[in-house]
């Protein structure tokens, strides 16, 4: 165990997995230069056959990942920014997500698509979308969103070893977050949520980048004797609904925080699932803290106005706890 930054944890996972499995190839735009640091040193270590810089052509590289995987390779395809996934969307939505199903399971497509997702860095609207709801709705791809450096390493290893297309979405601007990361080969199975903080009063489901403000809000409320249970799903597809339902059955209250636009956010989806399956356990309406249905703006003051922060999470928790059934 050593303290490392999230991006270092990802870099270690990539390096260890590529050492472990010589059939892994990694390609994408500027993976040699490594804009974010996750692919740093890999080109030097593994050479130009296994680590390739591509031109800027997402429509091609997203589909090349499918073709190379169908032809027997394990592929890591770096899409850089989540918004660039849209440019490569045909091969993702029509090929990667469907080829196995359409062919009656004839093939496996072991692909890990890497991208940075979400805002908070004044990168403006075309570099700041949280793309996980779009991807989760495709059906045939898995979606992973690590909330800590240790999870980033263990989940990225699981994503690479998985035999299906997996999107590994690193929260924008969180690469520098430090935490304890195990040195040993820890693989976190996809579809296992993490209870980041136990509590009896309210369940707070926090996705990806929202884990940090969620934990801060929980800390702040603890001073007032409010015990919030923070659940990080860690993977959106597959979703560990059992852990969320178990928590809600204990606390009776649910707040969700998701850096997605409100319409069709993953928070909305989980809220619906809980309402369907644990309605009897709820003692207050479910609340969602999401991004309003607008673009992510550039100026810091504007961006802060739309992205969920500690204050909004805290306010939603207090409102949920204060709710009383109308007489």
């Amino acid at each position: 165990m050593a303290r490392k930054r999230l991006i270092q944890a990802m870099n270690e996972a990539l390096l260890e997995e590529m050492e472990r499995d010589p059939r892994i190839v990694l390609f994408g735009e500027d993976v040699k230069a490594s804009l974010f640091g996750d692919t740093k040193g890999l080109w030097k270590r593994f050479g130009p056959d296994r680590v390739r810089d591509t031109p800027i052509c997402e429509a091609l590289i997203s589909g090349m990942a499918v073709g190379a995987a169908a032809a027997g390779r394990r592929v890591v395809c770096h899409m850089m920014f989540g918004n660039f996934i849209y440019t490569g969307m045909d091969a993702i939505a029509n090929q990667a997500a469907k080829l196995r199903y359409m062919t009656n399971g004839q093939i496996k497509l072991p692909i890990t698509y890497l991208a940075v997702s979400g805002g908070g860095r004044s990168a403006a609207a075309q570099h700041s979308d949280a793309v996980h709801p779009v991807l989760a709705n495709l059906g045939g791809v898995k979606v992973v969103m690590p909330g800590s450096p240790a999870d980033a390493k263990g989940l990225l290893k699981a994503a690479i070893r998985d035999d299906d297309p997996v999107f590994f979405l690193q929260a924008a601007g969180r690469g520098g977050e430090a935490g304890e990361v195990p040195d040993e080969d820890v693989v976190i199975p996809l579809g296992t949520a993490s209870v980041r903080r136990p509590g009896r009063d309210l369940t707070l489901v926090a996705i990806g980048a929202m884990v940090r403000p969620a934990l801060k809000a929980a800390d702040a409320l603890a001073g007032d004797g409010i015990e919030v249970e923070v659940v990080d799903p860690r993977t959106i597809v597959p979703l560990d609904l059992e852990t969320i339902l178990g928590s809600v059955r204990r606390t009776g209250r649910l707040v969700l925080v998701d850096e997605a636009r409100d319409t069709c956010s993953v928070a909305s989806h989980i809220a619906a699932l809980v309402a369907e399956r644990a309605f009897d356990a709820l003692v207050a309406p479910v609340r969602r803290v999401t991004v309003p249905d607008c673009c992510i703006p550039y100026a810091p003051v504007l961006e802060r106005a739309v992205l969920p922060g500690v204050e909004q999470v805290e306010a939603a928790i207090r409102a949920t706890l204060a709710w009383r059934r109308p007489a």
Partner: protein
Amino acid sequence: MVAGGSNLPREELLEMYRRMVLIRRMEEQLARDCAAGKLPGPVHLYVGEEAVAVGVCQHLSDRDWITSTHRGHGHFLAKGGDPAGMMAEIYGRADGICGGFGGSMHVADFSKGIIGANGIVGGGIALATGAALAAQLDGDGRVAVCFFGDGAANQGVLMEALNVAALWKLPLLLVCENNGFSEFSPSATVTAGSIAQRARPFGVPAVEVDGNDVVAVWQAANAAVRRAREGQGPSLIEARTYRTRGHVEYEVTFITEPYRDEAEVEAWRGRDPIPRFARRLVAEGLASAAELEAVEGSVARIVAEAVRFAEGSPEPAAATARGHMFATAPRGSAPWPGSG
């Protein structure tokens, strides 16, 4: 034994003839089945274009990869796909090559290197480029062939693929089947310039061939496949052919205005690659009329058996509809969110 100086052995010529006839008779059966309302979904027939798939695939083994198009029956059969499995698939049956999950536009058999037909125009271009990368890394002389139409030539991903394949010298053969139509739009109304010319600025060799002459296609593919296997990089072949049937069977039910001249269709029927090849084989003394008739007989038996197999196959069990989205099944009893 040669045909027009091609140095092709007689057996290989007869095999190509047999495959072209097989594709044609299978599809004529499908046209009748469609008209009779026996097929649940749309079918796009390859009638008149058989020489392209056959002339190219004759150079490939099961270990080579192909990607195909929505008009993909010919590529599937030319690459050695099972006729009965294809027929059952198009009938939507459990014993179809894809279990009834894909249908006409998605016939695939990975064990034979058939990455599959593709419902997205141009959808196979990136896939073939990726397969070519895998083949290059494997270093065992495999190649990837991408069949695409003149309509797909207008998708931007073709330029992306030409660029990367040229940069990396990928063992890729791009085969454009210019059949004159982009769905219901004549090529001249939607395609500027020459498709073959689009490859040349990338340094990718490109040739235009008579796509209704199987020997000409065979010769062009021979050079391109050899080049790819030797590590010299990609090539493009533009095969000029013609779609004698419509874009999709039963289009007369919704296309009310003619979009092409019937005289043009008739003229191209006169250049039908199958009788043309038959005449040549007989004229050059490479096959007798009786031998070619025997091919018809053997193919008729295969088609009849394919129909019998398809009709005898059960429909897929409805409970399997959600069965194999993922290779690594998610944990827990619920396969994925909202699954009940």
